[in-house]
């Protein structure tokens, strides 16, 4: 398989960067997209050129490290698939492929295709937890949780924190990530006491990190490799509204 690759190269945070073109003649359809890049990098090293830096770790679609925009789409053409699980048989002989990093104000580029996503961790530090100390937990079956509620919380909890939602959004909004994280906990009885505080704190930190606002493009849902639903954004908006109406309240008691 022969390919023309246009890849974003940028030495560091301060370098303006730009697209460079490479020819690759020995890709094959069984390779994963990242293995195709590995092969390109081996050729670059042989020639004495520095290899392309890109982020990856598990290569199983679960750690959320891989983060490439392929021909304008976060994680590439296959829906509900991270780029590490995307295989070359979804591309064709002679194709030109453009590969860029996540682009958003909240995600500055560190090198080539690698961006700084530490803003997500800071949002989590603001409120993405249930305040329980080690050793202070009641028996796990003390609070029964209806299966549909628990399943819905699990749907939200499937978010792998890759940031594709931000890269996909024309506004660079992080609402899908924040909504998934807050909803996972806000849906569960264990998370209710801190629900209002959590919604306020996480949204506030998201704004401080320079992410854009959500205007319902829904591109985030379309490009999310885990198919997280934008209904969670509506839920977060509701939780946030209530939290703003009753700023002193914990929020838990007011729920029907």
């Amino acid at each position, binding site marked *: 398989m022969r390919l023309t690759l246009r890849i974003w190269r940028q*030495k*560091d945070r301060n370098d303006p960067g730009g697209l460079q073109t490479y020819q690759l003649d020995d890709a*094959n*359809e*069984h*390779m*994963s997209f*990242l*293995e195709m890049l*590995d*092969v390109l990098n081996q050729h670059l*090293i042989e020639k*004495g*050129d520095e*290899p392309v*830096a890109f*982020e*990856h*770790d*598990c*290569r*199983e679609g*679960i*750690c*959320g490290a891989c983060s490439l925009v392929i021909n304008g789409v976060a994680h590439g053409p296959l829906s509900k*698939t991270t780029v590490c699980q995307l*295989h070359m048989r979804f591309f064709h002989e002679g194709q030109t492929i453009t590969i860029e990093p996540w682009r958003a104000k909240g995600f500055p580029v560190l*090198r080539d295709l*690698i961006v*700084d*996503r530490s803003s*997500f*961790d800071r949002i*989590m*530090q603001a409120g993405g*937890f*249930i305040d*329980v*100390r*080690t*050793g*202070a*937990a*009641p028996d*796990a079956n003390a609070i*029964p*949780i209806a*299966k549909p509620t*628990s*399943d819905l*919380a*699990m749907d939200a*909890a*499937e978010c792998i*924190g890759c940031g594709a939602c931000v890269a996909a959004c024309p506004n660079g909004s992080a609402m899908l990530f924040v909504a998934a994280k807050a909803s*996972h*906990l806000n849906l*569960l009885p*264990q*998370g209710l006491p801190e629900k209002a505080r959590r919604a306020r704190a996480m949204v506030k930190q998201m704004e401080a990190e320079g992410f854009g606002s959500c205007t319902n493009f829904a591109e985030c849902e379309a490009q999310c490799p885990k198919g997280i639903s934008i209904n969670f954004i509506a839920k977060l908006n509701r939780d946030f509204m209530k939290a703003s109406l009753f700023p002193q309240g914990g929020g838990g008691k007011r729920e029907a």
Partner: protein
Amino acid sequence: MKLDAKVPSGPLADKWTTYQDHLKLVSVKNKRKFSVIVVGTGLAGASAAASLSEMGYKVKAFCYQDSARRAHSIAAQGGINASKNYPNDGDSDFRLYYDTIKGGDFRSREANVYRLAQVSSNIIDQCVAQGVPFAREYGGLLANRSFGGALVSRTFYARGQTGQQLLLGAYSALMKEVGRGGVELHSRVDMQDLVVVDGKARGIVTRDMVTGEIKTWAADAVLLCTGGYVNVFYLSTNAKGCNATAAWRAHRRGAGFANPCYTQIHPTCIPQSGDYQSKLTLMSESLRNDGRIWVPKKQGETRAAVDIPENERDYYLERIYPAYGNLAPRDISSRAAKRMCDEGRGVGPTGRGVYLDFAEAINNFGEDVIRDRYGNLFEMYERITGEDPYKVPMRIYPAPHYSMGGLWVDYNLMSTIDGLFVLGEANFSDHGANRLGASALMQGLADGYFVIPYTLSAYLATVDQKAVSESDAEFKDTAQEVKSRIDGLLKVNGSRSVDSFHRELGNILIDKCGMSRSEEGLKEAIGKIGQLREQFHQDVRVLGEGTNLNQELEKAARVSDFFELGELMCYDALERRESCGAHLREEFQTEEGEAVRNDAEFAHAAVWEFTGDVSKPQLNKEPLTFETVKLATRSYK
């Protein structure tokens, strides 16, 4: 090297409570004065860092990923064991303990394993309180399933992504403590060495993976929670970044390395498809409940699977192990698959694969039932291989998956260096020569949430050590050694890439020190690895600089340590003249190819000491004694 396991006296079931009742405590006011370094933010590291910070210690945590949430624990699928006995099917602490110690082929320390079973229930409570969405029944209570051949249902799970959900729980606790100011978290930071002062672990040296800055950090104790080392084989189910550097550097500074040759090769992974292959993907073992494993009877068969008639197929597991058939344990199934491929009867483009066939199950139950049971696994298989397992049999092959070996620790999880504690997969403790499914997640969280908060406190309450700072000579000297090592790698400017060396090392190891070993093969491997290591240091090509983000440099430093560890694995395998757990020594097997264990000579942990010369490690032994179990032969016929 002195190996005192410090197991408390008294009956097995009372050891841990007696220990807790009598341990020395650090006063609330004094806790703030102690600082602790935690390297690693997987299940073991995140749970330890969060718990210690809640107690009041000053914690600094480190990980090489961009976020603590991406530690490799995230990838675990199947589940986590606990002796809750919610299904009322007769489970108990003792039964969980017994299954684990037997599964490990009687090569683990009794007291540690019993404690693990005792705290397992607390783990589930803790995780649920944090919001971990475990699977539930319609009545709203937690669901369980059976796993890994256990006779009871004790495995808790969350939609095939148990690891992610447990880690998100531990990570959220860690984020809470970072937000509160109790933990200082450093991501994209690679630990490169351990600083030892007056024989005690007092700090670490790190490389900032974005700026290349080499930095030192001082503390009162150091916890390594840095995961397993099966990436030494190059191809494994581990994440690409998993490495042995932290453990190996600690070993070179005096920490004993126990049972390095104990690695687990998981039977059901997608086979390699070509030389470019970068990792292997695990397929859940549950598939063996309905799939039948076979290879063609004829060597060098070229027909497609569906064209091979029934009477020309060899369902070898059913043939050799009629009682267990396709559900024979991990080690037995893996070895049998290798034997078939060695005989030239392997399938697929590389000849290293066996069929896992669902045709009969689909015939019996219908495609819908099979889709319902394994739909997402079939989808994943098709996404990766492009083949539809409803129509053609899957191809599977064993792959390195887990390291039971690791740094030696005593009952307190302290290594042979005072003040250096080792948690999770990085230590050697609880799984003996073979780990059972769903028990690694349990061990990581047990170590971090429920063991180290006690044992570290006991250490800090009694240790007598002077204050140290990053400007002390020991810190500066160690940092200087790290700098020289990194400059050395950059200076070689040879002709071969890091990956090409790593692949070659991996091939030697999987062939000679994988599922089955022989004296002859191991000696050959030792020679080859030594030569290759020398070549690596003379001919590796690492481009770019040390002062910015340089992924080749990161890899080179790791591979250079893998070379040394790989050699030690071979010495260890050579020394262990018995077949046990996941490992067959070819000289020690029955006529039918079954493992022959030798309890008289090898009921010990082999603990290796670094002597200054990689090729002359010193062996020490911790004898394993068993008070409550009888050493039995595992038979699955």
